[in-house]
């Protein structure tokens, strides 16, 4: 069962514009959400997270929005840079339990110069 879904396998944006990556989840018990970034031949690296008590978390060019009623989160990258080109994974789980994180299939972002 896919409890975390990223419905867009790929996204292409122009440098300087906004990138919006989307993620939907089905389990209402999830209270901690993360985005990881992955370059080819490397492991995923943590990008940004949000707990269910917030609806927005910002870190530089990266902002994550959480809509609990819609069970939806999104990652905004503004402005997008060519170095942001990577696969982005959404993950969800319990804030105090890393042992049952569920990951989406990833969205490949390409930022064109």
């Amino acid at each position, binding site marked *: 069962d896919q409890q975390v879904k990223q419905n867009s396998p790929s996204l292409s944006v122009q440098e300087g514009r906004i990138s919006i990556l989307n993620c939907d989840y089905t389990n209402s018990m999830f209270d901690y959400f993360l985005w990881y970034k992955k370059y080819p031949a490397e492991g995923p690296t943590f990008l940004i997270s949000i707990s269910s008590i917030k609806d927005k978390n910002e870190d530089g060019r990266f902002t994550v929005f959480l809509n609990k009623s819609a069970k939806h989160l999104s990652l905004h990258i503004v402005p997008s840079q060519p170095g942001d080109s990577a696969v982005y994974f959404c993950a969800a789980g319990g804030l105090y339990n890393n042992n049952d994180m569920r*990951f989406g299939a990833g969205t490949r972002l390409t930022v064109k110069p």
Partner: protein
Amino acid sequence: NAGVTQTPKFRILKIGQSMTLQCTQDMNHNYMYWYRQDPGMGLKLIYYSVGAGITDKGEVPNGYNVSRSTTEDFPLRLELAAPSQTSVYFCASTRHRQETQYFGPGTRLLVL
């Protein structure tokens, strides 16, 4: 700090062969994890460990075994390789349960 290291980077196995995927972390993290990622799918947890001597099953443990004799090492054992185990395997670690995970670079395994 090397972080999380995995060996080998790539391996081809014949059906029925066995092998051990190595994972080592030098951050003194208590929690360690093994995931597999199949094409077009998210990472799925195979096994995890909350400390030396303690392991537990994740979402997809069948066909695998693990051990955790030291804090640093968390090897994943495939006893009878099957084509369904063709995947990319990632090891990860974290200091505390609620902290984000640090991932290794992955091991690509092909079972023919």
